[in-house]
């Protein structure tokens, strides 16, 4: 918000035009997360995934490009840029070209509502939590589009599985988010983060701010909600153990089997952007969002401009922590079967989330 106003005033003082100021400020503040966070994060995360998997399997991973191979992803991106843009004759050319854009736009849409720090939130909408759920619809549509237009049985099967999985696991996600809305009475992510200010015992996972009986009653149910939300968001981004849409051993590579070059890179980037986005949502809901667990250096030294930067760093590190947990799970657990996947969602997560919702509702009434 501060950044938006600053850009608006800057352009307005030069051009004296409100429309120009609005457009410039909107475009620049909309692109900020892309260039500050998503692109560097995707480069880092692809490298990290390789190193994490390598070390978990007692290998070294990429070692030759740069120190410990940290330039490997940059080299890969340069390679992908040079690749020929292949569209097979039987592919549906229009939809085939739109699909990667739609998938990436859908996963980037979530970043519009993420509270990065108190100085920067793309759009401080009142319905941030609902918007984040709504935005995933575009990802599903894009994946179906990619699968259908590829005209390939593996792609279509992968797309179908992926869409079914995302739609099913949205239900436990929404139920857990409903419990949070019930307790806090807000759907605004910024207000939600501000409510968890102070120290880490004010985070939602520890029952939220304030000291009363209900806070201590909330704690076990909050833990259940946290685990449910983490599992269902993990399934929504199609990561192992829920990666049956791109199960390498049965479906080649799922819905992006036919893609090459930069279009493939867009799917890849969308996957990593999604990983960060769901981690950020989990941490914004349960772990205080951008709030520091121990107070701020800026307050200690009296440097108030330092606080938003610290908040951004806390937010990013909480997100990266959960991304590391996702990688750890990926290289530890085997893949679920399709029936196990659906059973986990419909027979376990949804009933648990429902009972949790009712119990938390009763405690809220107390």
């Amino acid at each position, binding site marked *: 918000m501060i950044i938006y106003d600053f850009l608006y005033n800057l352009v307005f003082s030069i051009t004296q035009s*409100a*429309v120009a100021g*609005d*457009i410039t400020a*909107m475009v620049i503040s909309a692109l900020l997360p892309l260039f500050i966070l998503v692109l560097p994060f995707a480069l880092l995360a692809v490298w990290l995934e390789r190193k994490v998997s390598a070390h978990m399997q007692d290998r070294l991973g990429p070692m030759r490009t740069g120190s410990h191979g940290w330039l490997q992803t940059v080299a890969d991106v340069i390679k992908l840029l040079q690749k020929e843009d292949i569209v097979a004759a*039987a592919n549906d050319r229009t*939809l085939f070209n739109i699909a990667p854009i739609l998938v990436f736009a859908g996963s980037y849409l979530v970043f519009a509502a993420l509270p990065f720090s108190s100085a920067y939130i793309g759009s401080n*909408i*009142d*319905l941030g939590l*609902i*918007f984040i*759920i*709504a*935005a*995933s*619809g*575009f990802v*599903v*549509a894009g994946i*179906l*589009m990619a699968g*259908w237009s590829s*005209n390939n*049985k593996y792609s*279509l099967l992968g797309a*179908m599985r992926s*869409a079914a999985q995302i*739609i099913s696991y*949205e239900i436990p996600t929404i139920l857990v988010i409903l419990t949070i809305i019930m307790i806090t009475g807000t*759907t605004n992510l910024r207000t939600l983060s501000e409510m968890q200010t102070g120290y880490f015992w004010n985070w939602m996972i520890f029952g939220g701010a304030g000291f009363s009986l209900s806070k201590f009653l909330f704690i076990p149910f909050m833990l259940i909600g946290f685990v449910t939300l983490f599992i269902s968001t993990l399934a929504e981004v199609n990561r192992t153990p829920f990666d049956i849409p791109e199960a390498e051993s049965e479906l080649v590579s799922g819905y992006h089997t036919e893609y090459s070059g930069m279009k493939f890179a867009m799917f890849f980037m969308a996957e990593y952007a999604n990983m960060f986005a769901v981690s950020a949502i989990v941490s914004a809901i349960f772990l205080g969002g951008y709030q520091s667990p121990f107070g701020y250096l800026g307050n200690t030294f009296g440097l108030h401009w330092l606080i938003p930067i610290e908040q951004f760093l806390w937010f990013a590190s909480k997100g990266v922590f959960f991304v590391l947990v996702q990688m750890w799970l990926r290289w530890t657990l085997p893949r679920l079967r399709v029936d196990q996947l659906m059973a986990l969602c419909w027979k376990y997560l949804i009933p648990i989330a429902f009972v949790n919702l009712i119990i938390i509702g009763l405690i809220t009434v107390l």
Partner: protein
Amino acid sequence: MSIYDIIFYLFAAITLISAFFVVTIRNIVYSAFFLLFTFFGVAGIYVILGADFVAMVQLIIYVGGIVILMLFGVMLTNKITSVAIKTGTSQIVPAAIGVGMFAGILTATLVNSHWRKVDTAPLLPTTQSLGLMLISEYGIIFELLGIILLIALIGAASLARK
């Protein structure tokens, strides 16, 4: 001309153009994808009208639910490689009567409703007032709608079992 005018015309153009293609294009999968963009444009117009909750529900239910289910239906009932998935025209007279009546209702609403003018009031969140209205003033209707949906669900399940 403010930024909101530009955004409004953008969303209006998205809605109209994609809605035009939904009904004219011959391939039914393309129609379904254009419908996605139509719903997206309508959601944008809801936001500009100040109905934030309705816009989000539009996105969740129509973009994330209805269109996806339609695509599932289309993809499951036809061979994926076939080009024979086409839309067509039939039952012109009943369709014309239905469309005419609906157009009449829409025109009446358009003329009679009190539209929000720009700069008259700041946009406020509508979620709380909507929720209060649903459980107080329209409580019974809300519950009855829920029961109707449940009946439809049970009916669909029992039809599918046969």
